[in-house]
């Protein structure tokens, strides 16, 4: 074990309607620990002293569920090349100061400390992010051939984990990368054709209604996306929406 001393500045906010602030903690941790395990350790020390633990979301801790997400030193998911849970303390040096904040966006209100409410993403999904096919009514899976290249490209977009880093990184708090990924996936697949227009119109309308900002091509979303969703999905989304609006 090699230990490392870090200074943490953690966003503490008791609830949605109260002001939050950065609180300083000093911690000696194991450089092999993951970033979230480092927070677990801090929490354990706080709890054992009878103090309130820092609330943060996580679940699978293997980079696929999309539940974790912290802004670390100003960057969504910090220096991790994927999600926050895949970041390890060996990325830091002795004595480093690490500021930890929640996703900040109107459409992602803070619930407590580092936990935000991302139910707006669910509502966008409900507004059209599906193919309307009831259980039992599907044709044989091989009835509709789909080229390998098309399936691969659709899979690139389908990989989105819905973490919301794109929103947190965007100066406009736009959800365009998230929405574009789903619209692009289903626009490519033959199964998605029937509802293609309604989907684009419905999801974009709901996105606006939730209070996400517009996209102005900063590209921050693509830079932080843990699943490397390319920014061209936003162009796809705009094209799909425009086509649907005009026809």
């Amino acid at each position: 074990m090699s230990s490392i001393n870090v200074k943490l500045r953690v966003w503490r906010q008791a609830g949605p309607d109260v002001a939050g602030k950065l609180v300083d903690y000093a911690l000696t941790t194991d450089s092999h620990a993951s970033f979230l395990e480092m927070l677990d350790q801090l929490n354990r020390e706080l709890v054992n002293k009878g103090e309130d633990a820092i609330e943060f979301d996580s679940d699978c801790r293997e980079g696929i569920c999309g539940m974790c997400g912290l802004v670390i030193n100003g960057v969504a998911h910090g220096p991790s090349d994927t999600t926050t849970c895949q970041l390890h303390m060996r990325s830091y040096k002795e004595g480093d100061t690490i500021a930890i904040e929640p996703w900040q966006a109107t459409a992602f209100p803070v619930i407590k400390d580092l936990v935000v409410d991302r139910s707006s993403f669910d509502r966008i999904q409900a507004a059209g992010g599906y193919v309307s096919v009831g259980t039992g009514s599907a044709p044989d899976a091989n009835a509709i051939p789909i080229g390998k290249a098309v399936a691969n490209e659709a899979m690139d977009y389908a990989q989105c984990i819905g973490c919301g880093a794109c929103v947190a990184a965007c100066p406009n708090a736009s959800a365009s990368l998230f929405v574009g990924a789903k619209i692009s996936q289903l626009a490519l697949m033959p199964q998605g054709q029937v509802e293609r227009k309604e989907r684009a119109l419905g999801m974009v309308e709901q996105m606006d209604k939730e209070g996400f900002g517009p996209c102005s091509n900063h590209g921050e979303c693509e830079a932080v996306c843990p699943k490397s969703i390319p920014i061209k999905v936003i162009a796809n989304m705009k094209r799909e929406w425009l086509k649907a609006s005009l026809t």
Partner: protein
Amino acid sequence: MINLESNEPDGPIETQWERTRFKNTLVNPANKRKFNVLVVGTGLAGSSAAASLAELGYNVQSFCLQDSPRRAHSIAAQGGINAAKNYANDGDSVYRLFYDTVKGGDYRSRESNVYRLAQVSTNIIDQAAAQGIPFAREYGGTLTTRSFGGAQVSRTFYARGQTGQQLLLGAYSALMRQVHQGNVKLHTRREMMDLVVVDGKARGIVVRNLVTGAYERYWGDAVLLCTGGYGRVFYLSTNAINCNATAAWRAHKKGAAFANPCYTQIHPTCIPQAGEHQSKLTLMSESLRNDGRVWVPQKAGDTRAANDIPESERDYYLERRYPAFGNLVPRDVASRAAKQACDEGKGVNVTGRAVYLDFADAVKRMGRDGVAEKYGNLFDMYERITGDNPYRTPMKIYPASHYTMGGLWVDYNLMTTIPGLFALGEANFSDHGANRLGASALMQGLADGYFVIPYTLGDYLGKHGNDLKSVDVNDAEFGEAEEQVSGRIDKLLSNKGNKSPLDFHRELGNLMYDKCGMARNEKGLKEAIEEIPKIRDEFWKSVSVPGRKDTLNQNLAEANRVADFLELAEMLARDALNREESCGAHLREEYLTEDGEARRRDDEFSYSAAWEWKGEGEAHELHKEPLTFKYVKQTTRSYK
């Protein structure tokens, strides 16, 4: 009184499901909206069930403890999903998938259920493809498959290494469509705390709102538990942090029998624990054993770096002990051998609980690029987590708790021993016997949700729906349940201890791995049965849960779950002690063949063990559901 009537249809197995569906009582389409169905959990089983039942017209309420249904741990399944499509034209059939699954489960599952699973497997692929899931394809546009352990045919469909994610997003999208249409009411960040039983039937649940701490009561005509397995009883596992057994355990204490808890699957190739701080273990595809060589230092306590240990001082123990299969022995054999090597003090890593998986020969043979082409993404993942470069130094691996075959006992209709309470997916015990084959978990979750429960729930409501007495959340039964739940939460919060729930969870996990993990024996199990209540007593004496109950308090939620694991663990150990044989994932050291292989004892143990809760401080009562095999012949699995 527990009734283990399996309700298996009689007659030829091939037409059992068809005849059942015909015999079922139907609910008139206009009457379906009069029934309230509560679906707890939104993984593959829960999302697919909630969506399918809402499509039929039932009023559905769906509950999950994460912030969105899409986070459920089904999302982490990598490899694929089995289905008897026979697209590969290689001799697959429903019967073969059925046969492989019963055999893979070491003849400890119910034939009728497994046959139906194999039958509906093909519909799942159709449904998922129609949802727009980008499965892997051939150049001609048809679906492609690969082969997986325990099968000689290629029947596993996949979407890169994220099959679980794509299938869950498909079921989630179907669920959200129903939410949008108003047929499903979605409740996120809610944790089921108790089941409400009225007149012997499941009629509601009490949940805790994890954000506000408020208790909420919901009534229903039926309750579906789709709440996953109990793998985190071992603390360290490949399960997600929030996976827990509380919903199933509370239902168990209300009268649902719990079957075969000792059938827990340990996966041999996980990234080992790096230190005390570890919160979970990450699984690495088993395919690595095709080219990696497993070894430990010959000398116990050898602290030299791997590359400083000369060839002559290494023990390639799998190749030595199993010359025919070598590094490719089945999961349970590989896991057990790793544990033995570590128990002998030859384990590596700072913890001494790891063995090497060495690719030096593979790099020599195939070149670095050849290895990268085959395993590049896994090597990258390994390096990201451990900081070691496996092209240069051997990987370290260790087995980890991965899946639980045991669960709530259910009949052919997926109904537990409490009428009106159903269990789906990993939460039930029904299809995998003593061991689950790879790529079969996704199949079972979706089979239960899409294609079984819509029929069997309809039959229950068709037969009993009109006789159910009308209930209200203000009824005494709801009040009593809530009182118990809130009393327990208050007790946790008012405890002025000095140890975090995490400390207790770790302590329990260490004990379970040690005495009740990959290899079990009478002495160890008896020690565990003595130790667990001591940890439990200590927990209630000195657990520390600061903070409030009326805001988000994840430490409180964890404490509540750990308390239940501390009870479930004891039942698990008792089941393992009772089962005096080795079968599937359950290995008792006293029951091995002369050459060290698992020895099943069919004459005495061809049964499912269903445990009945008899009250606090009372011993569980064992009930047996005999297993008869009319189609599959019980033989010894051989690895030679």
